[in-house]
């Protein structure tokens, strides 16, 4: 059973097909980098996998379940464009909230542990409102990781992060991959992604034009794939 499988997924915005007959499968433990130009449908695909959007045709399964099934949702860690934590709550309260919602055992302890791992323990009781952008992003990472998901869905996770924050995230993702978690991430920052990716998929105007192990060429020259398929 694949960790993530999409079969013939079409998504229309009205009559405009944003995704066309996407067929994709990611095995457990793989890390897929989802590439594509602006507007090619990466965000749409990730949101469909996360169950935040419904596809008009085709089926999606997460560990064999529908994405809206609660066991699928428990297995997922999602990091979108927004950080998904509340400005009016403190860092600790935010993590506690999500730990509770995910039914984590020992929510308080788990929240504290993740504050520590993301280097936020000294501001645990400050309101998020007062955080700088980097700190917010760290907290978002903690939120997405705290229930030890076995599937990560990340939409442009490296955007607007500095080198340190990128290193933190890469470290955590590597660790997760080692314990067997599956990762799907979209990105324009190919260099950062190539360090993690075992597999690459390229979207072009809603069609999946390439899916396979990361070509060796891309380590040296990240845009190699675009040039191969970009004009297709």
């Amino acid at each position: 059973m694949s960790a993530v499988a999409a079969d013939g997924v079409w998504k229309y915005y009205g009559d405009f097909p944003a995704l066309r007959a996407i067929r994709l499968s990611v095995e457990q433990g793989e890390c897929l980098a989802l590439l594509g130009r602006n507007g090619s449908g990466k965000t749409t695909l990730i949101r469909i996998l996360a169950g935040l959007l419904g596809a008009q045709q085709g089926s999606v399964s997460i560990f064999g379940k529908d994405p809206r099934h609660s066991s699928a949702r428990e297995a997922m860690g999602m990091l979108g464009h927004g950080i998904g934590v509340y400005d009016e709550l403190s860092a600790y309260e935010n993590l506690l909230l999500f730990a509770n919602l995910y039914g984590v055992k020992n929510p308080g302890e788990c929240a504290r542990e993740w504050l520590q791992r993301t280097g936020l323990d000294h501001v645990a009781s400050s309101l998020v409102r007062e955080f700088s952008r980097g700190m917010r992003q760290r907290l978002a990472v903690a939120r997405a990781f705290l229930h030890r998901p076995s599937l990560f869905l990340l939409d442009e996770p490296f955007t607007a992060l500095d080198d340190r924050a990128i290193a933190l995230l890469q470290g955590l993702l590597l660790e997760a991959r080692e314990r067997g978690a599956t990762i799907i991430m979209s990105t324009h920052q190919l260099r950062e992604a190539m360090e993690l990716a075992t597999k690459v998929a390229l979207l072009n105007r809603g069609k999946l034009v390439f899916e396979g192990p990361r070509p060796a060429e891309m380590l040296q020259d990240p845009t190699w794939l675009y040039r191969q398929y970009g004009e297709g």
Partner: protein
Amino acid sequence: MTNMGNNILYVMGIVAGLWLARNVHEIFLGLPDEAAQGAIYRILFFHLPSWFTCFTAFLLAGVSSILYLTKKNLVYDTFAVSAVEVGTVFTVVGLTTGSIWARIIWGIWWTWDPRLTWALITCIIYAGYLMLRRAIDDPTARAKNSAVLCIFAFASVVITYKAIDWWRTQHPGAVLSFRTGGGRMDPAMESILYQNFFALLLLTSVLVVLRMRQEAMSREIEGLRRHAHAL
């Protein structure tokens, strides 16, 4: 659509027109004046059928909204919006004919009687539906959100319909035999009334189908534009 479909539509339109013309002739020349109200009571033959028509349209729109939410096929949404648009027009016709009638026999255009008030609220709610649609760009989200609203909105139609039973109103109570058990209206009159209703319903169907085509067309154009943009 096919030629065949077009022809059927033309025929339906013509039949509706002729039928309405015949009804008008009958209403104005065939029927006698009413004892209490004189000539003005004839407005009933337009007042009541337009309310029936709009209620029917709203009911069908609600059903089709439920279907959209279960089947996710945009055709249902297209039908719902077309029905609501045409229905809203008939709501306005009903309000206008009612107001004119009120002006003549009550001496005022409007009074805050429950029936009248609820009719106005229904009009506002469905106007809100149409406004909500214009505020959403993505056709799929638009269909979904307006379908939900359309289901909620139908409550106001029910209240409007039942208002004369639930409250003491200045607006006259039921006259049709299926609600009163008969006796409040001359059968000849009632038959004309129904005929006018069905003629209007026929006209409505033609309008709805035309509007559906236009809606489908504009959605297609929107899709093509996005295609062009993506190049």
